[in-house]
């Protein structure tokens, strides 16, 4: 088990390193003096000279990367051009806002979609199956930014059940905070339901076709024993991996939902930074989201043996 954990962690290190190189190179590809780009309109000859020295711009590119990456490892992601604040605390503040919405949505979607997909597979080609597959394909095909607008239109503007746009933090007013995140959570929940029902159904169907299921039935086990003890448990593994991918992808793509509902999350921070050409924030957001994505998938991988012990044996 320890070997498995070590191997998985070691595999994540080169990925993170190459991601860091990619983010570093991306900003260096922009024409112009990197120090002038990083300081924007705030640049003075003295600050430019100081930053050039700090970034090691008179040195070779690998040395520059080493200096930058060393700073990143110490938590120094630079200073935002627009807000003059250090980038890391800014990114972390916004991350918690996005993470809350994404985590609740994915948790709820998993709770409903995984059993629904399993039932659909168990009752393959029945009317229940056709309904669930149809619903999943439909939900999966509706982009979150349109789904969000539709919810906003009907639940917010037509029925007046929920506040339309904005964000209230939980520390300010927990009741209002809850009301404000219902629609963003519901948007992501409905979309991810579509993705997860399809995956859960496909992986359960694969398992139900295996010989040991036929064997279990031939042994005379009750249908519930076959399903609960043999089929569903083994079918959960691939779905579990997908849940990890969904979590990471949502963090990367949540900007659209945050735009619909005017939530000041990490995605919105990144998009605003792109508009403002706030390169330190762009670099910080990209690197941080990539790091979270790898970390989430690492945790998912490390927990995988709980559902499928064969993985550690391999």
């Amino acid at each position, binding site marked *: 088990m320890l070997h498995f954990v070590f191997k998985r962690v070691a595999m994540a290190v*080169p*990925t993170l*390193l*190459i*991601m860091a190189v*990619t*983010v570093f190179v*991306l*900003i260096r*590809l*922009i024409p112009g003096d990197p120090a002038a780009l990083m300081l924007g309109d705030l640049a003075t000859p003295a600050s430019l000279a100081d930053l050039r020295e700090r970034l090691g711009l008179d040195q070779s590119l690998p040395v520059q990367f080493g200096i930058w990456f060393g700073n990143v490892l110490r938590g120094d992601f630079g200073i935002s051009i627009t807000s003059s604040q250090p980038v890391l605390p800014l990114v972390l503040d916004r991350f918690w806002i996005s993470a809350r919405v994404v985590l609740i949505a994915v948790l709820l979607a998993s709770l409903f979609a995984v059993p629904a997909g399993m039932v659909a597979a168990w009752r*393959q*080609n029945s009317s229940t199956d056709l309904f669930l597959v149809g619903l999943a*394909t*439909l939900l*999966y*095909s*509706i*982009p979150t*930014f*349109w789904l969000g*607008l*539709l919810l*906003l*239109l009907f639940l917010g*503007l037509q029925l007046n059940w929920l506040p339309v746009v904005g964000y209230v933090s939980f520390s300010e007013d927990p009741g209002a905070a809850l009301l404000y995140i219902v629609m963003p959570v519901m948007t992501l929940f409905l979309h991810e339901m579509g993705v997860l029902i*399809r995956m859960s*159904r*496909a992986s359960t*169907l*694969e398992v139900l*076709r295996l010989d040991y299921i036929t064997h279990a039935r031939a042994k005379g086990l009750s249908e519930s024993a076959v399903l609960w003890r043999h089929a569903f448990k083994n079918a959960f593994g691939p779905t579990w991996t997908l849940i990890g991918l969904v979590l*990471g*992808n949502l*963090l*990367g*793509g949540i*900007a*659209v939902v945050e*735009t*619909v509902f005017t939530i000041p999350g990490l995605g919105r921070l*990144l*998009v605003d930074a*792109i*508009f403002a050409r706030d*390169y330190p924030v*762009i670099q910080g957001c*990209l690197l941080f*989201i*990539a790091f979270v*994505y*790898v970390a989430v*998938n690492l945790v998912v991988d490390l927990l995988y043996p709980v559902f499928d012990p064969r993985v550690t044996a391999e």
Partner: protein
Amino acid sequence: MKRLSLNVVLGGAIVGIVVAGAVLGAVWTPYDPLKINFVGRLAPPGAAHWFGTDEFGRDVLSRLMAAAATSMLISLSTVAAAGLLGTAVGLVSGYARGWTDRILMAFNDALLAFPAILLALGLLTVAGANSTGIIVALGLAYTPSVARIVRGTVLSLREREFVEASRVMGNSELYTVLRHILPNCVGPMTVLATSMFGWVLLAESALSFLGLGVPPPAPTWGNMLAASRPFIAQAVWLAIFPGLCISLTLLGINLLGDALRDRLDPRMRGAS
């Protein structure tokens, strides 16, 4: 088989209508999609304007048709760019093997670990928010998926007898790759390209919605949806029709993708 034909018929019909609308939109629209008419602004759907008019009095149906042409063109160009670049990387990696393969795939897998939309956002910072920028950014963001699939196919093909025979006959490596290996990668590439077309269309709409796509006044479904937000209470059709176009197109592509996968992998028939 019943579900398979339903997927093909429904998916094919939807995609067919959208493609026809896009082709028509490229050459003819009922009204000029860019012509401003303040007198007729925010007119609801009616006989003169089937899908109503927007905040500048422009005909929504004409803009949707022009947007379909733009979206299709961007998506096709992006899939072609990712296909060409990914195929080149996959062919070199899979055929050369050894260190070339290890280094190329290490970078490729690290890029695959980035959510594609995030990578595209990063690349847009460099390439700029316009049609070319989107094609470059999304093309590069989706290249690693193609490279992975092509490399896998090449690895299995390069050991087959007909490839060995080509080498024994004295054909050059380049000839063997282009004449014998490349054509056999078309099958898996077609399945991937179908799904990728949907992903790219969605990503392009999302970027346009964020204001990072084709700049206005040129219409795209994404920027039409974004522009509808301030008027959503008084002109609901502005938000309904572009969203419906994106969703129906994605539904059609997903149904066709499912059918294609069913056909190529009969074991999984009806699994998705």
